[in-house]
């Protein structure tokens, strides 16, 4: 769930704000909520927001499977691609751990948890 407020008070001139929040739904029971509030009291401000919620495309999985990946590997690769905007900004060690955790989550070891 994402909940957020962008509040631009009068006098905060030439403010620029952009919020993007995308959700990837991995199974039939998952839920995703996006609740933004953009409140602009200043004429010169530009406030934008965009969001998308969707599930992993079957086409993408099929494409990767034709290249020899298992379904689990394909899914983990898609998820890693989806979060790459965030992981790229992380310190290298954290990013590696996160990538590894996601890969394991989609492997047969993921069932353990």
């Amino acid at each position, binding site marked *: 769930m994402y909940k957020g407020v962008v509040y631009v008070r009068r006098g905060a001139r030439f403010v620029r704000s952009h919020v993007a929040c995308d959700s990837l739904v991995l199974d039939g029971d998952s*839920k995703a*909520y996006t*609740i*933004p*509030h953009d409140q602009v009291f200043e004429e010169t401000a530009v406030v934008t*927001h965009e969001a*998308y919620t969707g599930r992993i495309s079957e086409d993408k999985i099929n494409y990767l499977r034709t290249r020899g990946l298992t379904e689990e590997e394909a899914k983990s690769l898609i998820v890693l691609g989806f979060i790459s905007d965030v992981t790229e900004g992380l310190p290298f060690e954290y990013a590696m751990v996160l990538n590894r955790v996601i890969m394991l989550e989609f492997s047969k070891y993921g069932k353990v948890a």
Partner: protein
Amino acid sequence: MLIPSELRIKARELANKIPYQLIKDSPTVKYYTQWNLFDRCIETGGNTLSKLPQSNDYDVVIHNGELIKGVELLGDQVNIGIDPSESRIIARHLVNLREVYPIVIKGDVEDEVKVLLSYGGEQNELNSNHVIINVSDYAVVNLALSIVGNGGCGTNVVEVNVGDGATLNLLTYSTNINPSFSLIRVTEGSGASVNAYTIVVNGEMTHHREDYILQGQGASINSNSLEFGSGNSRMDYMINIMHVGEHTMSNSTTRAIALDSATVVHRGFGRITERGRWSSTSIEGKVFIGSSNAVGMSVPIIMVDTGDVNGARHSATDASIDEDQELYLRMRGLSREEAIGLVVYDMVTGFLDSISASFKGSVSQIRESLMSLIRGR
């Protein structure tokens, strides 16, 4: 048709007990609708002296809760789909209501069916209108709905039931002066399709809400709206789309204009429920802030309760005239005010031109009144 007495009793009990709104909207702006302004409105039960509207252009006219024209379209069954426990304003509406009018539209109607809900009275008098419109299965209907406030407070509720496989083209034009509450609730059957165009203009505190319930499998809604706020108007336009049936589709686009000292709020809510598998929703809003005292707010919400979703997206923008756009126009000798006026004119005419040709008559009247509003500023 009179309201069932048990419903009126329940409404009377709840009208002073329950709040207008249970949960505040946000930590910063507590309420997008200033409900306290409705507290000064006094229920009249339709016993108000006011000038009757011109009824020549309309097929159905309801004024201050009384049917003035359109008896021939009346049906005989009333199934009220709103409940007083929803909120205080709904309870007050049901307390204040004189009668509910069910209208049945059968078969294909090529010309537009024009319905006018009007209210008027002294500044603090509250008048209410309620109409239930049933569109038969597989009918194709063009419905032009006007909500006109000539002073005083108003609550207007329109319930529309769209039958299986039916197509409804709905044009709503709402213009108000004092605090007003409008609720348009559309329920769609299987394979039903609604193309909605909404124009909401001004008002001291206009709360305009549209609910679309995509009940049947494969139902769809395509909504385009224009909010126009000038002077000291405060407007809260809200569109709620509930995907209940499978393979349903919704698309909502709102353009809003805030001028002078107006506050314009656009709220869009798309929810895909657990039963609404393989559905898609798109909510888009653009609020144009055309003055240093104007305020624009956007709240586009998507809630997806099932993983089996085709896609849900929303986007929102709150901004004034684009710098490049302004520079370009000013280079051609226009002042900033003239440039803003030109952008507003373009937004309004662009929207009106996009409305289906089946509403040619109504659009021409709306265009006239909007243009005089823009010119008179």
